[in-house]
């Protein structure tokens, strides 16, 4: 028997996938306890679902495989803030605004900006100041 665990998932749906009863299948087919925190499922628009799933580790893995068969973006980092490394120009404007040092310039020689997701508290200060839209709130 594998361990019972809880995982936080953020699912992003393009228009076409909003019609499918995904939660039903997570409960019935994979025996998961589902707790939805936040959802926006509007026909003909993009949607998202933020939920905890609790169940057997192996079942969660199978459920994620099932979710990946749809055209869905799965974010299991647990963070509502994404830092797009390809958009970041490494200017460092965000650094003094980040209260926890999640965004920082660790090497003064290269002056490359790095993002430590674990240190991020999702205050979204960086979203407001980044000129290049590299820091994006997922909601």
């Amino acid at each position, binding site marked *: 028997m594998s361990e019972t665990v809880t995982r936080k998932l953020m699912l992003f749906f393009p228009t076409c996938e909003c019609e499918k009863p995904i939660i039903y299948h997570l409960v019935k087919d994979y025996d998961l306890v589902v707790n939805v925190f936040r959802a926006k499922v509007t026909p003909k628009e993009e949607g998202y679902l933020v939920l905890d799933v609790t169940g057997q580790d192996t079942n969660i893995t199978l459920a994620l495989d099932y979710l990946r068969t749809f055209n869905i973006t799965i974010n299991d980092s647990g963070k509502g803030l994404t830092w797009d490394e390809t958009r970041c120009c490494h*200017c460092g404007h965000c650094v*003094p605004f980040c209260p926890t040092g999640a965004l920082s310039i660790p090497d003064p020689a290269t002056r490359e900006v790095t993002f430590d997701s674990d240190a991020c508290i999702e205050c979204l200060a960086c979203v*407001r*100041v980044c000129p290049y839209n590299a820091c994006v709130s997922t909601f």
Partner: protein
Amino acid sequence: MIPPVVQARGAVKTYEQINRKIESGTAVVMTADEIMDYVDRKGLDAAAAEVDVVTTATFGPMCSSGCTLNFGHSQPKIRMTEAWINDVPAYTGLAAVDVFLGATQLRHADPANMDYPGEFRYGGGHVIEDLVAGKTLQLFALSYGTDEYPRREIRTYFTIDDLNQAIMVNPRNCYQNYNVAINDSDTTRHTYMGQLEPNRRNANYCSAGQLSPLLNDPLYETIGIGTRIWLAGAQGHIYAEGTQHAGHCERSGNDVPMEGAGTLGLTADMKEMNAAFIRGASFRGYGVSLAVGVGIPIPILNADILKRTCVRDAEIMAPVVDYSHDYPEKTGRVLAHVSYAQLRSGEIEVEGKPVRVGSLSSYHKALEIATLLADEIRRGEFRVSEPLRKLPANRSMRPLTIRPEPS
């Protein structure tokens, strides 16, 4: 005031000699980030004999940017009198299918600062970024119709490959030095220098400092009109002095300006550019801009030129200016001068109080550009060029006088 350049001492190289070494793949090239330590080890005269080129670079937002585009002719033809690219208006007061698109142009119906601070998510700078990235854009244009250009409306989709010409024009780039912005008021200010928190809680600067082109050639000895440059990966050139070029200013003992000073007008073919070095920028409460990567090689013609490329962040001073009152009201007050070494430490001291510092210029990208350019020169792909004309040396900045009547 720019001092007269004295006769160079020691060995002297010519542009032709340096280009011959570049063509044979034997040129010795270093970046402005690494040259100072090398000169410290080797000695100035020995290094001047050995090193042929020092590469400089900068990457940051520069509002005075734009591009001229030629669409070619539709059937039947149109003489565009109004045009929008992805809903961003382009200037059509040129020939039939030529337009000029400016970096700070807002998208049609952008609410700007009506809901302050405005977000300015998409504008001219982003159109330029999308063009260089090869994305498909929409052209919509209107005309009054003429005998030879009868079409009165057109809507079509295009990429940069469909255009006859897409030529970037930056009337002002590579500011020699720049202000450090701070906020003396008790409310947040949203500026082109980024977000400024009240009561001097933060400060922002915008220069590549010791890597920046005109800080490595402070007296404009090798960088002039006609100089070949690296503009976002394309080989372009300096077509004119930049707007607001004002070399006549306060300078420190090493001839380095302590304020804005010189600027450059740049141009290059956008079809040859690398999208990693062209970025649309949105500044909340201010507007749209464009960040551009520029690299300029400095040919080491003599030891004095090499010595000036050895300038370090600690020796370059920038003025700290209040953007809540002094800058908008043009009072000319400077709160303090701080060095780029202090700025890069992340904290400066202004009138005895510590202030956290952020940057708008990317030293990381500038370093990448200086390294790329050095590699291109080493491979013989990028030659140095002698300026056709010097930049004006002792030009001052004129104010705009408000006259109640024609004088």
